[in-house]
Structures are given as C-alpha cells and as structure tokens.
C-alpha cells in the first residue's frame, strides 16, 4: 500500500537526520574543523576585476600595487556572523602582512558600520555589491580567504573564518618564503 509520494517526507527527513548525525559526530569527535579547500585558482594568477571603493571611489584593480609581497585577499560582509568571529585574527595578521578586503554583497554604509565596530584590518577595500568578484574567485560564501605569493599566484584557499591553524600556516610561509 506504500506509495512513493507518501514515503517522500520520510526519506527527506532521514537525509536531514543523517546530516545532523554526521555534523554532531564530527563535532564531538573533534575531526570537523575549518579546513583549506582545493581551488582551481591555486597556482594561477587570480582575477583582478576593478572594484569601486567604500567611499564611492572609481573602480580600480586591488592587487596590482602589491605585487612582490605576500597578500591575503579576504571576502567578508557585515551580515555574516563568522566574519565577526575572525576579526581579531585578521587584526593580528594585519600587523605582519597586507590584507585586502572585498565586501561581498554588502552596502558600503553597512560595511563601514561593521568596520567601525570590529576594526579595519584591510589595506584596501573593494566593494563587490553585485557579487561579480565573488563569482570570479568562485567563493562558497563568506568569509573566505586566499593567500597570494609574492609572484601574485594563489597559494591556498581557506573557506570560513581565519583560525589559529591558518595563522600558523601563514606565519610559517612568511618566514620560509615558500
């Protein structure tokens, strides 16, 4: 008497439950931690779409001026809760290297408010109101960061807030230069 349509809710729920169980299991066992992601961009020169500034400055390329240094490109937004969490980590990192911020789908006034509240670690900020730059870089969401080597190529990609592991990784790379 079972009909597929009537089993559908049960199947959907089973899937959701599986998702929760996996989430909880990995959380309890400590194996789930923000990690570095594979990216098509690794080893490539990243896209450098000209973006307007926070105070409506005309669009310009953000990466050109910093060729020759290690760079962290950080996608963020004021509406994103994990971005608040990574603010202290970015602040400490900004003393050691240049960080470039891209405000993803966020109104400049909101971004400004966010920076006033949580601090501004960015050397330069591009406004990506329509998310085109996000598409160029193929981000999953915000926050997401890309580490660029002095030759301008992407070395690694990190989705989620900048954490201690990433900080240590970046510091090691700054020291060894690789």
């Amino acid at each position, binding site marked *: *008497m079972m009909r597929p349509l009537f089993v559908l809710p049960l199947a959907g729920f089973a899937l959701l439950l599986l998702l929760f169980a996996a989430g*909880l299991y990995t*959380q309890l066992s400590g194996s*789930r931690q923000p990690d570095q992601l594979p990216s098509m961009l690794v080893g490539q020169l990243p896209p450098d779409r000209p973006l307007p500034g926070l105070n409506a400055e005309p669009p310009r390329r953000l990466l050109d001026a910093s060729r020759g240094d290690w760079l962290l490109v950080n996608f963020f937004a004021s509406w994103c809760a994990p971005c608040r969490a990574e603010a202290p980590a970015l602040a400490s990192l900004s003393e050691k290297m240049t960080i470039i911020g891209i405000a993803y789908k966020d109104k400049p006034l909101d971004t400004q408010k966010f920076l006033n509240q949580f601090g501004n670690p960015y050397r330069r900020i591009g406004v990506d109101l329509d998310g085109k730059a996000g598409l160029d870089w193929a981000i999953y*969401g915000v926050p997401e960061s890309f580490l660029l080597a002095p030759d301008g190529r992407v070395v690694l990609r990190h989705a989620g807030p900048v954490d201690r592991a990433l900080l240590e990784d970046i510091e090691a790379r700054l020291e060894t230069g690789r």
Partner: protein
Amino acid sequence: MIAELGHFALIAAFVLAIAQALVPLLGASQREAGLIAARLMTVGRWLALLSAGLVLAAFAALVISFIRSDFSLALVAAHSHSAKPLIYKISGSWGNHEGSLLLWCVILALFGAIMARERRPEQPLPAHLLPAHLLQARLLQARAIAVQGMIQAAFLAFSLFTSNPFLRLAAPPLEGRGLNPVLQDPGLALHPPMLYLGYVGLSASFAFAVAGLIGGRIDRAWAAAMRPYVTLAWAALTCGIALGSWWAYYELGWGGWWFWDPVENASLMPWLAATALLHSVRVAEQREQLKSWTVLLAILGFSLSLLGTFIVRSGLLTSVHSFASDPARGLFILLLLGLAIGLPLLLFAWRGPQLAARADFPPLSREGALILNNILLVSASVIVLVGTFYPLALELVSGARITVGPPYFAASFNPVMALLVAAMGIGPLLVWRGGWRPRAGLTLLLAGGLALIGTGFFLLSNLLPGLQIGHKISPAGLAGIALMLWLGGSILADIGLRWRAGSWPKGRARRALSGMWLAHFGMVVFLAGALGEGLFGSEKIARLTPGDTVQLAGRLWQFDQVVQTNGPNWTARTARLSVQADPAGPARQMRPQIRFYPASQQSTTEAAIHSSVSGDDYAVLGEGSEERGYILRLYRKPLVGWIWFGSLLMALGGLLALSGRQKLPEAG
C-alpha cells in the same frame, strides 16, 4: 527542601507521563471490552491532568529557588545574582537551557491537560452503548492524549537525565554568577514563554494527526477537533516571533528587526508550516479534502519546532543567539528527533495513501486558492530550510564554514512571499466548490486601481526631481508597495461592498469572516512597516564632540555630553542627546547607554528609541572619548512599529476567527 520537592515532582511527572502514553492507547485498542476500555480512557485523562499538575509544581519550585537566590542549586548559582531585580530573577529561571526546557515541559503538559478536559458529561458507558460519533470523538481524544504523553515523557527524560535543573552544589558560593546581561530585559521575560506556547502548541495538532493515523479515521470531526489547537499555537507563535524581533531591535542595538539568523529561521519555518496548516485544516473541515496533506502538515509543523530547538540547543550552527548550547545534549535531541519525527512519518507513509480523496473542485475555487496558499507557504519554508542547513551540509562536505545571509533570502524568499500576497488579494473572493463571490470583479478592479495609482505616485517621484521624497525606490520596492496596496485595497473594497449591499453574515460566521479580514489586514500593516523601514529609512554614523549637531531625515540631533550613571547591578556611560522634529517644536531627550555588568564582566548597548505612529528615532552610543568625540549611530525608521503591530493584528485575527468557528452537527 523546595528544590528536592521539585525534583521529586519532576520524577513523578515522568513516571505518570509514561503511563499516560500507554493506558489510554490500551483502552482505545480494545473497544470490544466495553466498560474496561472506557475506564482505561478515563484513567488516561486523569493521568494527563495529574502529570500536568506535577510538572507545574516542579516549575514553581524552580522559580521559588531563583526568587530566594538559593545558590546551593548549581543552576541558580550559574545564572542568578542576589542584586538582580526581582522580575529578572524570575525570568532568569527560564533564561538558561535547563530552565527553558522545564518551561517547555510545563507547556507540553498544559496542552495535554487541555486535551484531557472532557467536553461531554462523563459517563463510563460501554462502547456499544455510545452513539457512533461520540465513540469516535472519545477514541480520538484517548489516542491524542497518549501521543501527547509520549512527547511529554521524552522531554521529561531529556530534562531529568541530561539537563536536570535541581542539581545541588557541594560547596555553595556566596554570590551567583549573574545572568547574561543581554537577557536582563522585560522583552525577554515574555518572549520565550510566548514562543514556546507556539512551538509546543503545535505538539497538540501533531498528537491529533498521529492519533488520526493510528485510528485510521481522518474526517471532518477530526479536523474540527484539531483546529482550535492549530489556531492557538499559530497565534502564540506569531506573537512570540514578533516579540523576539522587537527585542532584537531595541536590545541588540543593531538597528534591524530581522537578520535571517539560524535561530530566527528556526522559528520562521514552523510558523510558515503552521500558517499553511491553519488554511488546509479549513479545507479538511469544510469539504473533507486535502486530508492526507493536512496530516502531513501537522506532523511537519511540530517537527520543524523540534528542529528549531535542536538548532538552538546543540550549537550546530553559528548563530548570534548562542546563549546556551552544548553538543553533547545534541545527541539526545537527535535521538528524540529521530523517534518523534521518524515514526509518525513512517506511519504516514503506511496509512497516508488510504486517506487520499479525489479532488472534486475546479482550480478557481476557495479550495484551489488554499492549495496555492499551501504550495507557496511550504515552498517558502523549504527555502528557509535550505538556507539554514546548506552551510552545515557544506561544512561537512568541504569543511568550509560560511553563511549564505540576506542576499540568498532576498532573492528567493521574497518573490515567493510576493506571490502569496498577490494571491491573498484574490483567494477570499472565491467560494467553495468553484466560482466567484458576488461583486468580486468590482473588488479586484478597485484593488488594482489603488495599487496602480499608489505605485504610479512613487514611480513619478522617482522620475521627477520636483516631486522627490528623498528616496529613490528600487523596482523590487515598487513591487512591494504595489502588492501592499493591492491586498489592502482588496480587503477594504470587499468590506465596503458587502456593507453597501447589506450582505453581512450573522452570528458566528460574522466573527469568522472578520477574523480572516483582521489577520489579512495585519499582513498589510506588517508590509507597510517593513517597506517603510526598508525603503524610506535613513541612518548616519557620526563622530560627535559635545555641542555638535547633525541633520538626519529633516530632524536636528544635538549631542550634549556623556555622563556616568549607575543601575542596580550595572554602571553605564550615558549619552545626553536631543532630537527636534521641526525647528519650532520641542526637543526630545534621548539617552543611549553602554552598560557594564561587573558580576559577569560583560557590557551591553542600550539603544535610545522614541517611537511614534509615524516611525522611530533610534540612537546608539559607540566608543569614543571627550577629546576625540564619540561614535554615534543615528537612525530614522519610518513606520517601523507597524511591523509588530501588524503581527499582533494577525494573531488577534486568528483568535477572532477561532471564536467564530461553527459547531459541527451532532450526528457527524
């Protein structure tokens, strides 16, 4: 001593709840046994009442322990402080995980008790002597009480075994560690009980749905029995969400009223499902159609409430509401979720197909409109579900932690809701079994005219600089205004034309109709508030030194100074500001604060808000000093209060419609 009594009452309630889950079911399953079956069902009712009394006693014991600042209780020591005002000592008893879970159990038990009250004179008649419809009503009641008992036993077990509020400390501290200062607020004394009334109220319709599936009998009487609980839970949920949104607006000081945060979404999903249920149960009651769908919605409504709790309690998702979370408890909830949702869905997969009836109405009918309503509401619910859990799924697959945020919801949720509002202007003009109400064409013409003229005005003001109202409105904003006017126009024209034609319904039917109008008009008021705030709001962040003035939306703000002030358990920096709406008028004093709570070493921002019908002036004090100036965030939020007033109208409309529901004929 009091705590031990409470602990004992909780254990006794747990044992009784297990009995409540079994005894009436046993009675209902042996209807041949006649007198014994009737007695068992009666015992089941008394078990429900007694267990409710015991849970209530346990909760009272906890509240008394908080009032008396009994720091030998671990919970009181961790969440209270002797210097706290009395009202926050009381609300502190549910401002934490263990206490709020106990509150959840209290409301669950109260709904069990409401179900258990007998409507007809109690006579333990043998089954074969009862008229058929009375017997069916009694069997349904017994099964629903049993299902409610199962849920209650599960939650009491959760409370007793993983989150016991009555545990003592070996070495009691002299002073408590306070309560999260953000939670010391009158809005929060009301918000959780109201929200829980909604969440848990959905357990009653869930119990009726499962009871109906167990008995294999879903008919008009079933829908009629379930409907009051659906309406009550829906109204409470509406108020609870509105209160939470209002609290976030004035207490968190972010200047917004909805953030698409996982915890907010967790309350929105059951609300959307309950709204769909509220409408589909009408079809089941009136026309005996959509029965299996109504059963499914009733199961989903409570399931989504449970999911909501799961999200808040387990700390699975990153949220701004992380007041109390612990992954270890999540495992228990996961188990509970699996049983409480999985088993009914299994039952539904097995029994549901028998309920399917052939649709006997054309698409352009009241039934058709309500189906459209259901499709849209459930789609919206799925959109919120996906937006809430996609980050979790992605994190598991790739390890990335992200949020999708408002851009996702603005692009997906809003269009679905826009369609819903458009349909709301048409649906009530259709009649059961197909066709239009008299004068429906004229009503639509008037509504369309109003929408066109109103939107045209704003479009013109966009184009002509002379007519500027200070804000350029986006196409999406114009569509929102058009839809709001369309819905409002349709309701008002319908009322007006009925009045002119003298075709008011009488008695209960009038209350039912007015309730529907009121609830739908609440949506118009809500939209007016949301659009006013979203499209015409202004804000400014300024660094001000004493004596500075700022212009915002035609208002003159003047900053005088920042002074130190003291409260009962906090110290604060308070800004003295004044705002003047017109140069000749009086200046209004505004006092935004940053409060510091020494007991918990936390600080909160207290926004200064002046509300009126036309909108709010809103000021938040930020960091700064006398020399460098202080950062101040100033807002003008037109019509923002209408958001919550509209929500209240919706809830009141639901209750009014409930009071006007028709009694089914006795020989059902």
